[in-house]
């Protein structure tokens, strides 16, 4: 095999992405040990604590049920800041447009970016636009970077999970990935499933009063809940045990996943967060989420069961036990 070329799987958010980061990108660009891989960097500039993050958006198709690449680009970066417990302040935006792209489609995308930014309470303060020749890009790519203020001394960190912590998700999983997949050419599934694309900073601000009981916040985007929980388990050095029967999944997502042979645990979300909360305040956290419009289907889906080298296991619907691994490569539809 030729190991020199970049494969699509390197962008999947799963194991190949981690390998690329650990073996190539991080050693050359920062040399910082990989343990501190969180959603945003924490900076202390003259006593002011900031969170800083960046993300690029290349979704295909660019319009899908429940959103488009524009609101995704705002919400995704806002969420990366929010997962550090930061209050998102402002964003930059970079567009890479392909020659021949439609201005009216761009206008629709800009309108939904503006709407998403207003809803999240962030300003888009700077930007850049480049155009590449036809065939050298795919219509539109968007990069956004964001800065947020860290206004507390909490340590919300993927490495902060403790034995006993409850794992809470703020609603049904897999909607975004299935909405995008259903909209792809060639699949023609009218599933009625909409992307869950949403800014989570409002919900996070409601959770911050849990203070020291709030250990980990993560948004399970690419790679889904399974990959994100595995990352947390590895970072925190713990075993997380999930209960399959408690996973909130809509019948629509379950149906499409069942037809295509996909596992909803590995399907992307864009408006979901996973919180690891100390057990004595877990019910309170659940109540806070359920009172919020983005958390009415919130559920406790598992707990940290032991200190270990980083495992995720699942008690299945029928009472069996199995391991849960990170997404390896792309999730491919099954063959028969």
């Amino acid at each position, binding site marked *: *095999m*030729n190991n020199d*070329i*970049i*494969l*699509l*799987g390197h962008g999947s958010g*799963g*194991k*190949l992405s981690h*390998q690329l980061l650990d073996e190539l990108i991080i050693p050359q660009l920062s040399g910082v040990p990989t343990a501190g891989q969180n959603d945003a960097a924490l900076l202390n500039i003259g006593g002011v604590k900031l969170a800083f993050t960046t993300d690029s958006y290349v979704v295909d198709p660019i319009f899908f049920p429940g959103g488009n690449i524009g609101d995704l680009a705002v919400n995704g970066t806002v969420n990366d800041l929010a997962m550090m417990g930061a209050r998102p302040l402002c964003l930059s935006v970079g567009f890479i447009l392909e020659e021949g792209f439609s201005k009216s489609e761009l206008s629709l995308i800009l309108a939904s970016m503006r709407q998403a930014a207003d809803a999240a309470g962030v300003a888009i303060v700077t930007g850049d636009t480049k155009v590449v020749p036809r065939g050298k890009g795919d219509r539109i790519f968007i990069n956004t970077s964001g800065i947020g203020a860290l206004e507390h001394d909490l340590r919300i960190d993927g490495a902060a999970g403790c034995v006993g912590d409850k794992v809470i998700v703020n609603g049904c999983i897999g909607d975004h990935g299935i909405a995008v997949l259903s909209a792809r050419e*060639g*699949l023609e599934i009218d599933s009625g499933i909409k992307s869950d694309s949403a800014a989570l900073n409002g919900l996070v601000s409601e959770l911050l009063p849990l203070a020291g009981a709030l250990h980990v916040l993560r948004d399970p985007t690419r790679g889904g809940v399974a990959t994100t929980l595995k990352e947390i388990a590895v970072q925190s050095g713990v075993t997380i045990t999930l209960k399959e*029967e408690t996973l909130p999944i809509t*019948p629509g997502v*379950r*149906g499409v996943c*069942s037809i*295509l*042979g996909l*596992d909803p645990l590995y399907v992307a979300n864009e408006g979901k967060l996973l919180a690891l909360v100390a057990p004595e305040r877990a019910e309170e956290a659940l109540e806070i989420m359920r009172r919020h419009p983005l958390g009415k289907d919130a559920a406790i889906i598992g707990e940290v069961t032991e200190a270990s080298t980083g*495992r995720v296991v*699942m*008690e*299945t*619907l*029928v*009472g*069996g*036990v*199995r*391991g*849960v*691994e990170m997404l*390896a*490569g*792309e999730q*491919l*539809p*099954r*063959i*028969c």
Partner: protein
Amino acid sequence: MNYLDSFRDKELVQGLARRIAGLTAGRDRPLVFMEVCGTHTMAIYQFGLRSLLPPEVKLISGPGCPVCVTPNGYLDRAVALSRLPDLIITTFGDMLRVPGSSSSLMEERARGADIRIVYSPLDAVQVAARNPGKRVVFLGVGFETTAPTIAGSILAAKAQGLSNYFVLASHKTMPQPMAILSADPDLSVDGYICPAHVSAVIGAGAYRFLCEKYKVPCVVTGFEPTDVMQGVEMLVRQAIAGESRVEIQYSRVVRWEGNAKAQAVLGDVFTPFDAPWRGIGVLPGSGLKIAQAYRQFDAELAIPVEVEEAKEHQGCLCGEILKGKIAPLDCPLFGTRCTPESPVGACMVSSEGTCAAAHKYGR
């Protein structure tokens, strides 16, 4: 009634597990059952069913993952075709990562080959219709469940008068490898969990000769957890009673005679041949190739291309795993040199491969 949930009922599954434990308690030798089909392998891992069974019942996986039993030579031909100009490869997704002798389709795609994942062979026919200036090759891999739809795509291409649609056919058929496994003195199988959807096409009657010749119980079993557990219970009862019959657990779908229409389409478009199975060898009459009357759609005949000499990967024990002789963890490459993101053998690639299932769910 929720059709999905009712077959995943915890009480029913655990009740079946208790009955199986009761029937087998105190046996000195465990009963070994082989699930032949990759979808069963996945279901057993996904629902953690092994953890519910008593130590007296052992499930081993067989050669029923179509990607896994596809030999390197086939992949090498697909890779060679993908390098030709004005040629589009269309395939089910699982084939992309399967390593051939020196490359994979995923690598070729990264280098610029036009390789497209489709969800149905009819989509591939549409690709051909939309690209009249290009040759479109569909990778026809699978058992009797997939083969009729691929036969249908050839009939559709013919009806539309397309001359640029081709199938690289490597279909396998089911009962034959089970006979080879049954005759293998190194392998002692006390019963087969027979494939669900393959049996819907070929009919449960196809397994009768196994019961008669090799005295081994066969139960055609569905893919849901209650199905598998009930299928195991039926096998346990037969094995304890010293019986060897074909039984249909999956009676809501499978008939003794199978699906006559699908069989007729298969008989029209394909013809049996001695197919090579990865790790097992060439088995007489165990594959389907495109029949003479449809030879213009046969990529192997219609598109000549130089194919590299097939090389098996050193140390890869896929063959032993496909025969159920060793478990994934017994392979020295498992989880070290051979991982889902960098597979050495095909069992690690397909979502239905035994090693992929063990890697994803087993630990």
